[in-house]
């Protein structure tokens, strides 16, 4: 399956949906910082992997799919929920790469320059996510 960009999909979202994501992301970051300040890095660190993007993305995917079906005259459809489930499956693969990001940061941050470690861990997350997605596709075809 070919990976492609679809910039038209940005038009489906209203500006307040982007604002909601921005505020939600900012709020989680602040809460994670405050928790780390009060309860220490062990508890605060858990919130670095808080699902901040996924709930809003899955909700919007379902909403846009439902609206598309309604425009086509189909009132009741489960396509939106199935599309959100597909999104969740991709996210599950991404979480494995997220754990690898954390492992690299945990092991290497005390010894090397933080900027390079964070950039390297981000690239690892991206490469591993794509590799896991491709592997899943390969296994599904056999």
């Amino acid at each position, binding site marked *: 399956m070919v990976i*492609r960009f679809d910039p038209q999909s940005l038009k489906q979202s209203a500006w307040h949906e*982007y604002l909601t994501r921005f505020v939600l992301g900012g709020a989680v970051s602040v809460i994670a910082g405050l928790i780390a300040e009060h309860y220490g890095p062990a508890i605060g660190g858990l919130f670095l992997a808080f699902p901040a993007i996924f709930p809003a993305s899955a909700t919007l995917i379902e909403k846009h799919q439902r609206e598309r079906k309604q425009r086509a005259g189909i009132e009741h459809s489960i396509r939106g929920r199935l599309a959100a489930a597909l999104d969740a499956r991709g996210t599950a693969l991404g979480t494995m790469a997220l754990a690898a990001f954390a492992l690299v940061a*945990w092991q290497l*941050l005390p010894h090397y320059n933080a900027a390079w470690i964070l950039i390297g861990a981000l690239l690892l997350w991206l490469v591993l996510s794509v590799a896991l997605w491709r592997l899943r596709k390969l296994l599904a075809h056999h």
Partner: protein
Amino acid sequence: MHPPCAGSIYHTCVQLLIRFFLGGLLVLVFSLIGDVLRPKGFAGLFGAAPSIALSTLALTVAEKGNAYAALEARSMMLGAIAFLCYSIVCCLLMAKRHLRAPVTTLGLLPLWGACAFTLLALVR
């Protein structure tokens, strides 16, 4: 205990504002990338992008040093495993039971918390 002086309150507010804007910006950027990518299963990878982690770890390194940030990253691994459990359950409920996405994803957030804190208690 001395009351915090105006300077330290100002410093804390500035730090929180920077945290808010950086975290919000990274979450927004990764969400937008996920929005424009197809197929949907691939775009879903970006639902687990390290947006909060990048902003928080970068600011923690600047404020408290690399060793402290590494301790946060260690716990983040447990948070990521909890996120894996949470997203698998969300996927199953939406695909098999056809539950609505907002109900499922928001309703199951306590599951993420329960998994994360249980894992932390187990490794401590």
